C-alpha cells in the first residue's frame, strides 16, 4: 500500500489513564492506517481499548486519560502537534464521529434542524438559508422521509433508527475524510441495523469518507469492512483483510472470538450445544499479565508466553499477528517448523463450518 493512499495513520499510539489505583494502559502502542474510502473494522471485547483509540484520534480522551506518546497523521499532518483550536476545526469537519446511543446523542432541547445547522455554521461561513438547504439535502440523502418536516422536529419525536440517520447526516454534513463509528448500530434492532449501515456505506463511498468501524459484532465487520484489526488489552493482536481473518485466523484470541459467534443450526436436532466462550475474563488494565497479555486464557500457551511479549509476525500479505505460535524463533526452539499445512490444520479444526456472510 502506497503512503499516498493513506488518509489516516496511527503510529505507536499510547493512551493511558492515570487513576488513583495506578496507570491503566487503555491504548498501548497501536499502529494502524486507513486508506481513502476504506472501511476498517476494529474488534475486540469490551475494555480492550477500541473506543479509547477512537477518542484519541479526536483528542477527546476523557479525564484522567492522556495521550502519552505516538503520532496520528491525517493527510500527513500530525494531529497531536496541533494547537487545540486547530484541532477543534478538524473535529466534525475532517474527522467526525457517530456514537452508540442515538437516543441520547442528540440534544433534547433543540430541533434536528438547529443541530445540523449549528454543525455547519461552526465550520463554514454560510448564511442560515444556505445551511438550511444543505441540512435538508443531507436529511434527504440519509433517506429520511419528509425531510422538511423532520427538520423542524425534536429528537424525541423520532425513532431510534431515524435518530441514528440524523447522527449520520450530521457526521457527514461537512464531508469529512474520516468517520469514526463507535458501535453505530448496537442500539438498533437487526433489520434497522442493515438499513442504517446500507445508507452509511452508500453515502461514504459517494462522499469519499473512510470509516473506522469500532464494534464487537463480527458479523457487521464481515459484511462491511475491507480490513480488520483485532484488539486485546490495548494492543493489536492480529490484523488483515476480512477474508484472511475469517478464513485463516491465526491468533488464538481471534479464533476464540470467531468460535464465540452464535450460529443458527447449532442446536439442530433438539440437541443444543453450549455457545463457545473464551475462558477467563479480560484482565484489568491495571494489572496486565507479563509477556503476552492473553496467555492466562490461551488454550495454546507455550512456556515463553508468560515471559516475553510476542513479536509481530507477517503471515501473508497484509496479514500479521502478534503471537509466539508463528514466531520463527519460538518454533526453532521447539524444533517444529511453521508450515502452511500446520496453520491451516489448526484453523480448519477450530473453525469448521464458519460461514462468511460476505458474498
Amino acid at each position, binding site marked *: 500500500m502506497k503512503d499516498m493512499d493513506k488518509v489516516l495513520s496511527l503510529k505507536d499510539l499510547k493512551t493511558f489513564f492515570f487513576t488513583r489505583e495506578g496507570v491503566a494502559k487503555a491504548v498501548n502502542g497501536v499502529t494502524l492506517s486507513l486508506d481513502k474510502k476504506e472501511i476498517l473494522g476494529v474488534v475486540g471485547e469490551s475494555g480492550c481499548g477500541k473506543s479509547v483509540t477512537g477518542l484519541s484520534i479526536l483528542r477527546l480522551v476523557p479525564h484522567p486519560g492522556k495521550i502519552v506518546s505516538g503520532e496520528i497523521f491525517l493527510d500527513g499532518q500530525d494531529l497531536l502537534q496541533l494547537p487545540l483550536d486547530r484541532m477543534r476545526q478538524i*473535529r*466534525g469537519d475532517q474527522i467526525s*464521529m457517530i*456514537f452508540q446511543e442515538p437516543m441520547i*446523542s*442528540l*440534544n433534547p432541547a*433543540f430541533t434536528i434542524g438547529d443541530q445540523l445547522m449549528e454543525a455547519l455554521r*461552526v465550520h463554514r461561513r454560510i448564511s442560515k438559508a444556505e445551511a438550511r438547504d444543505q441540512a435538508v439535502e443531507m436529511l434527504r440523502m440519509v433517506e429520511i422521509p419528509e425531510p422538511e418536516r423532520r427538520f423542524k422536529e425534536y429528537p424525541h419525536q423520532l425513532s431510534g433508527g431515524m435518530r441514528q440517520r440524523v447522527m449520520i447526516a450530521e457526521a457527514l454534513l461537512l464531508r469529512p475524510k474520516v468517520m469514526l463509528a463507535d458501535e453505530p448500530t448496537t442500539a438498533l434492532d437487526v433489520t434497522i441495523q442493515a438499513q442504517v449501515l446500507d445508507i452509511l456505506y452508500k453515502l461514504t463511498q459517494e462522499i469519499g469518507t473512510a470509516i473506522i468501524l469500532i464494534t464487537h459484532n463480527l458479523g457487521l465487520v464481515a459484511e462491511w469492512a475491507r480490513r480488520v484489526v483485532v484488539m486485546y488489552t490495548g494492543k493489536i493482536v492480529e490484523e488483515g483483510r476480512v477474508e484472511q481473518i475469517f478464513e485463516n485466523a491465526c491468533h488464538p484470541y481471534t479464533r476464540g472470538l470467531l468460535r464465540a459467534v452464535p450460529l443458527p443450526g447449532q442446536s439442530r436436532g433438539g440437541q443444543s450445544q453450549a455457545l463457545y466462550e473464551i475462558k477467563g475474563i479480560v484482565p484489568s488494565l491495571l494489572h496486565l499479565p507479563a509477556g503476552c497479555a492473553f496467555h492466562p486464557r490461551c488454550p495454546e500457551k507455550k512456556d515463553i508466553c508468560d515471559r516475553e511479549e510476542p513479536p509481530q509476525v507477517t503471515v501473508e500479505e497484509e496479514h500479521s499477528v502478534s503471537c509466539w505460535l508463528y514466531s520463527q524463533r519460538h518454533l526453532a526452539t521447539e524444533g517444529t517448523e511453521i508450515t502452511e499445512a500446520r496453520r491451516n490444520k489448526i484453523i480448519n479444526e477450530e473453525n469448521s463450518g464458519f460461514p462468511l456472510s460476505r458474498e
Partner: protein
Amino acid sequence: MFWNRLLRNRMGMVGLAVILVNVLMAVLAPWIATHDPLKVDVVRRSAPPSQEFWFGTDDFGRDIFSRVIYGSRISLEISVLSVLVATLLGVIIGASAGYYGGWIDNLLMRFMDAIMSFPAILLAIGIMAVRGGSIYNVVLALGFVYIPRFARIVRGSVLSLKEKEFVEAALAMGIGDVTIIFRHILPNCLAPLIIQGTISLAYAILAEAALSFLGLGAPPPAPSWGNILSDARNFMLDAPWMTVFPGIAITIAVLGYNLFGDALRDVLDPRLK
C-alpha cells in the same frame, strides 16, 4: 403536555393568580391607589379603616391602602431584580465550576460555601450596613446572598449533563466550550432553575421586608411592605390596622410564589410525579 399538567394543578393556579394580581397591582398602582401614598394628613392620622381610608391611615395620616399598593412596586422590583442578579451570577459560576471541574470548581464552590456559611439575612444586613440603605443596595445584597443556591443547582445539573452523549457528540463536531455550555448544557437545566427562581422570589420578598423592618431596606418615605410594617410597629396595640394589612399583603404574596414554585416543581420534575 407541560401546560396541561400545570393548568390542572389547582394550588399552582391559585399561586399564579396571586402572582398576576401582585404584578397588576404594581404596574397599575397609580390607577388603583385611592390617595397619594406620600401625602401627610395631620388631622386624620392613625384613623381606623373607613369608607375613605379602606385600610386606615398611619401615624402621619397617610393612606395605608395606597401605601400597600405602591409598596408592591418596590417589593416586586427588589425581589425580581435580586433574583435576576443571583441567577445570572449563579449560572455563570455554577456552569464554569461544573463544566471545567478541577481547581476552578474547587475555588468557586468553596467561595460559594463561604457565602452559605452565613445566615442569609445576617449577611444581607452586614452588606446593607456597609453600603447604606438604597433600593439598589438591597438588590445587590439580596442578589449576592442568593448566588450560592443557583450556583449549586447549576453545577449539579452541568456535572451530570456534561457526561451526556450529546455533549460528547457536540465536542466531536468541533463545537467550542462556550457554545456547548450555553447552547447544549444550560437549556437542559432550565427546569430546576425556574423552580429555584420562583421560590427564591418568595424568599426575596420576605428578606426585603425583614431588611426594611430593621431600617436597612428601601429608605423612607417611599413605601415598601417592610418599611410600612417598620413604621407601624410602635402602634401595634393601639392601631392594629397599620401592621395587619401590609402583613397580610406579604403573607399572601409569599404564599402565592411558593404555591406556584411547588406546582412548577411537581410538573417539571418527573421523579416527583
